[in-house]
């Protein structure tokens, strides 16, 4: 763990210094005033409300959307992954095709397509339920990530020795039973670091939901820049860079630490 703590400290300190240096280089003598102005916008950027009274926008929205998208993608990705290792070619072929199509699609295009593909509202049990931009953004983000999770699932299952399959079969388990009771429990430690990397990637991608009209951190940033003037734009984007870094970097370090532990245990 020691080496990881060192990289973590070097990373956080170093990036903070680099960003502060960039900030001072851009603003020079005005740094203090600009910093105070942008710091005053912190509640808005973090929670979407001016005084932390509600958590419905800003950076909180990015976190909420990314968690829901990850949950959706985990379910869909596991199903797709099971399809990809199916013995019947009728299921395997389409699954692999869907995975490849989703993996090679730009997230921005999928987000736009979902914006127009999903209806404005749906009728469930006689009541009209509105599909908000946030739900569309969540589905749009979940789709490409489904492919990544299916890949992780296939890789994890593939890394379990085939002897496990054969012995379980000898004990009379059926294929899906073997997956559920024998192989997947052993694959989970191997899959965890990759799933965390996928989540970090998804969180980084959640910055794109600004195009769907969700109140995410970038759309709040646009509002702030529109009200405070163009000269704060660089400062606001630096601030958002730092927010994303502070969220994703610990995940990256934890992932590496887990990866090493899994490798050592093998």
């Amino acid at each position, binding site marked *: 763990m020691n080496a990881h703590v060192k*990289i973590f400290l*070097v*990373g956080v300190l*170093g*990036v903070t210094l*680099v*960003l502060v240096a*960039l900030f001072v280089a*851009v603003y020079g003598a005005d740094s203090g005033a600009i910093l105070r102005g942008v710091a005053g916008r912190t509640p808005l950027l973090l929670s979407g409300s001016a005084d932390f009274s509600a958590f419905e926008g800003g950076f909180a929205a990015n976190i909420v959307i990314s968690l829901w998208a990850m949950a959706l993608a985990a379910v869909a990705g596991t199903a797709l992954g099971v399809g990809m290792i199916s013995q019947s070619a009728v299921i395997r072929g389409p699954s692999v095709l869907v995975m490849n*199509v989703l*993996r*090679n*699609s*730009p*997230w*921005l*295009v*999928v987000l*736009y*397509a979902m*914006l*127009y*593909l999903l209806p404005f509202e749906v009728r469930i049990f006689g009541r009209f339920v509105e599909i908000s931009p946030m739900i569309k953004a969540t589905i749009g983000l979940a789709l490409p990530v489904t492919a990544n999770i299916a890949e992780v699932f296939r890789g994890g299952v593939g890394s379990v020795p085939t002897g496990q399959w054969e012995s379980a079969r000898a004990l009379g388990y059926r294929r899906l039973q073997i997956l559920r009771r024998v192989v997947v429990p052993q694959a989970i430690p191997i899959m965890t670091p990759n799933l965390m990397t996928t989540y*970090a990637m998804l969180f*980084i*991608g*959640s*910055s*794109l939901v*600004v*195009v769907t009209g969700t109140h995410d951190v*970038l759309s709040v940033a646009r509002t702030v820049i529109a009200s405070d003037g*163009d000269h704060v*734009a*660089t400062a606001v*984007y*630096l601030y*958002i*860079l730092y927010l*994303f*870094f502070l969220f*994703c*970097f610990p995940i*990256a370090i934890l992932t590496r630490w887990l990866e090493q532990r899994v490798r050592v245990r093998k």
Partner: protein
Amino acid sequence: MTLDFAWLFDPLYQRWLLNGIGTTILLSLFGIVLMFVIGIVGAAFLHLNVRYLQTPTTIFVELFRNTPPLVQLFFLYFMLSDIGLTLTDPATGRSIPLFTGFTCVVLSLGLYNGAIAVEIIRSGLLAVPSQTVEGARALGYTRLQTFRHVELPIGLRLCIPPMASNIVSLIKTSSQAVLVAVADVMYGATQIMLETFRNLEVMLLIWVVYLMITGLAVLIVRRIATTVRIPGYGS
């Protein structure tokens, strides 16, 4: 729901789309070149234990890998256009801004995917069999010569599979150029959507276009991989 693709036969829209595809490919190519430069230089610094440069390289990699390329792009776009450097066009003598939207997109693509490339190339370098490296040292190659003539050529070949997905990711990410008004294929698409209101059809077509571009990139990488293959190293 019926899909209407009649707008596709309008020559104006065809020209917009084709120009856009050209711009997207050009963006991606420049981005890939920058990505390789950053990746190889960064990996060399880390691998050769260059003093005073290792820590800055680590900080660079962590900063650009853990932040969204979109925010990097907006940041570059606003910061660099504030600085306002200009170049003189040799043909017309007019001064053009050095950091246009196009340049900023290429920079952000190169920085984000370059930071990932540093890690990919470094793991490729670590995968070079130690006997090969020791053999080169025994033959009298210096540390730098070993790197240049033995480790790098083999390491780059070993990291082709993850590099292919990094290149696909770069091409996919290039679609965000539209958000700083660079006329790539997404930009053409949004223009057509504004005129025809065939939003869904246009987006589906663009989806297919991107799948074709990324598919083509994967094919090219595979061809390169078989051409440069050294028997005994990698699959």
